[in-house]
């Protein structure tokens, strides 16, 4: 067992963990942040995407011990938990019907936030490439792309367009 200290969604957590424990299992089974789901075992689907020290990562491709001393932001900490307090990206996903079953959604939103941080005004092609590591089986991506465009517009203060 290894002792680790990790900040998760603004709260500091300390646990003894097995060295082989995946960060995503740590978040889900130890910290109780079950809002971040798991969709594969080969780091392909992106469902488990969280922000680690300000960068989006697939939390199934990292060990909990590697997160020691770090700062993790999950979908649960992205905004308040009341409807009036949503992050613009969450708002845009709802507005544009960017989700159906919602299983890919936490990862998709975290990845899209990261994309806009690096490129606040992406083209459609840049959005599609930017979220390439996140798979969705329900939406066909059409409305996810619209959601990211809508969030980009609202976050850069140019107003929401549809």
């Amino acid at each position, binding site marked *: 067992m290894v002792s680790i200290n990790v900040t998760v969604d603004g709260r500091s957590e300390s646990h003894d963990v097995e060295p*082989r*424990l995946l960060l995503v*299992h740590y978040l*889900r089974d130890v910290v109780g*942040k*079950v*809002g*971040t*789901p*798991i*969709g*594969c*075992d*080969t780091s*392909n*689907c992106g*469902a488990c995407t969280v922000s680690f020290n300000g960068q989006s990562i697939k939390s199934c491709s990292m060990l909990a011990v590697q997160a020691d001393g770090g700062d993790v932001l*999950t*979908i*649960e900490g*992205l*905004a308040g938990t009341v*409807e009036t307090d*949503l992050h613009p990206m*969450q708002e845009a*996903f*709802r*507005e544009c*019907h960017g*989700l*159906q*079953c*919602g*299983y*890919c*959604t*936490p990862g998709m*939103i975290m990845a899209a936030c990261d994309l806009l941080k690096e490129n606040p005004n992406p083209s*459609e092609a840049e*959005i*599609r*490439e930017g*979220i*390439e*590591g*996140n*798979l*969705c*089986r*329900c*939406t*066909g*991506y*059409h*409305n*996810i*792309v619209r959601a990211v465009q809508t969030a980009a517009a609202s976050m850069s203060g140019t107003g*929401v*367009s*549809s």
Partner: protein
Amino acid sequence: MTVTDKEYETAFGQPLRRKEDAHLITGQTRWVDNLSAPGMLYAAYLRSPMAHAKIRVNTEAAKSYPGVVAVYSAEDFGAAQAVIPDAWTVHPDMKKPVMTPLATDEVRYAGEPIAVVVAETRYQATDALEAIEVDYDPLPAVIDLEAAIGDDSPLVHSSIGTNTCFYIESPGEAYAAAKAQAEADGGVVITRRFLQQRLLPTPMEPRAVLVVPTIDDLTVYASTQIPHVLRLLLAMLTGHPEHKLRVVAPDVGGGFGGKINCLAEEIIGVHLAKRLGRPVKWTETRSENFLQMHHGRAQIQDIELAATREGKLLGLKVDLIADLGAGLRLFTAGVPMFGAAMFNAIYKMDAYQFNCRTVFTTMTPTDAYRGAGRPEATFAIERMMDELAAELGMDPIEVRKKNWIEHHEFPYTTISGSIYDSGNYEAATERAVELFGYDELKAEQKARRERGDRMQLGIGVSTFTEACGLAPSRVMGQLGVGAGGWERAEIRVTLTGKIQVVSGSTPHGQGHWTAWSQLVSDKLGVPFEDVELLAGDTATGPQGMDTYGSRSLVVGGSAIVKACDKVIEKAKRIAAHTLEANPDDLEFAAGVFTVKGSPGPQMAFVEVAAAAQLAHNIPDGMEPSLNSAYTFDPINLSYPHGTHLCCVEIDTETGFTSIYRYACVDDVGTVVNPMIVEGQIHGGLVQGIAQALFEEAVYDEAGNLITGTLVDYLLPSAADVPSFLTDRTETPSTDNPIGAKGVGEAGCIASTPAVVNAIVDALRPYGVNDVRMPCTPERVWRAIQGGQSQSGSVAKGGAQ
């Protein structure tokens, strides 16, 4: 523009934002794997690494691994472990070999569960799997479909003496006559072999089961599309009384047909929880999901079509070989038969022959995957229509027009005996041609051909119909399905006039909460926000037939509308009593009862709700409740249709194909929420495009699934597909009170042939008349080089 829900006078038909989204976008989800219960244990399954072998299992060593509570194989359960259920007796003589949840003595597909470990933690359960000893005595794999039929083929199930499950042949005289006529009159007879590759349904949430026992009863939390059917099956299989068994489908992360089964992990989960007296959870990895969740498609289709020189269809003959995989699951045998009535599609013809052989192989069993039989049928006929057009040098839309049922001919009884209630193929096609820019793209294609551009265009057409709204119980009985096709809804009205809708139709991404609220809001005149949905739990909604076959709105929605009518009838009696009027003189609109022709006293629905439950002054003998239930059993299936047009751009030097433009106009009948409908189309389109371009479950000769992870199985990402041009026409169904036709599978059924037709169209100048799916760059490039049909054997697993 921001859509605020209050802008609309009525919720019906509006693109209202979904109620279910708030918890999904904030991570406040209830996926089965998110749930835990005090004292919960974890299960992990040892699965066969071999396609076919005799096995001897020794679990002893695993029992002493850290944290292990129990290890079981088939022999520990004996006959009590039950069997994997099937529910579709397609043919009285069909062979039904028995498969057990944990393999007994023999494994028949890679991934078949052999033993289960239950431990205190997830990791401990998985660790102990390595200590289970299994002796595998290999038997031959049966991978090649056509070889499997031969007398000298090794058998998947030696007990039945054949690999054929059933063979159905329909009379061939009419088709033979049609063909003879075509040949005599200088018409055309076209034959093609199409291969429907195996696909993996791949909902993003893998399956998961948590079984919580108490001294009195048992609760099963399952990632399933069918909580009600699952409860019935688990009760029958395990002997646990149905009324003491509760099945909950909490948040479910997609299904696409993949979650309509009752498999080892559900059945064994019940056994484990009962034996150990503790909650037991199992969550599938993606690799397990690819091996154990049923696969889809997997057919060889030999199609022959006879037509006159003018392009008028005379007859169609279909010879199918369907790969069932290693054994029967709930609807395995029925999938090819569900397609049987759809090969003739929207076309009029005089002769249709359908023969079908279903075959066991040593691969994962197949079953319903989005469309289930209909995408295969639609692919075949729509490819043939483009081939016919090419053969005759006609425009593919023109050749369809010559043959389709015209809008004034409905209701129309097709050659296969289906009764299409309504449709307007002309209107949908006209709109699609306009939206797509058909003539402009044709011109561009021509210009590029003349210039000899490296990047060539191809245009593909698909004018599809499908059968939705599974459906009339009587018909399902005639087809041998061991279930009814009705759906139930209950409307509960609280004292304050709020509504709870209890629906037997179970959501897993479709937007039931929103659409059902729109229906109720429209019917009862209550605010959209005042309606709540209770679904996916057999405790709150004990009756239901669940979600598959694009039936939710058509069947489940209709039940809601009918139940609302009953609520209104009751409310009317109370309102009339209060207003001292005759019930027949009352009108109900926008949530208010008024006396016909009188501006005078009125009573709002909320007031009636309160009056009903206060019960201080209601008509004598009336029950003090507005609650009402209705079980709707439609008289027919419904038949949505649409016209899909795809333009592909092909790099003729690399074979790389991308979608240049895709436009579709779907007619799904009356629409309750156009935003949701469009979303269903988008998602379906990409799944259909994925079959055309990317996905294939490939087995090697030894029977290993070599596309066993998301590294090798190419699920499209956002970068692989375009945005779409979509529109609708609305021809209401005449067979249900909403007029809805179903939309869940439409995009997936229509798009595959549109894409392949486009690819073949682009390559016709190279002498190509078919490209095998998935049309990978390599296959397209080889087609350009070789200039001929790419049809091979699906059974070779596609490792071409």
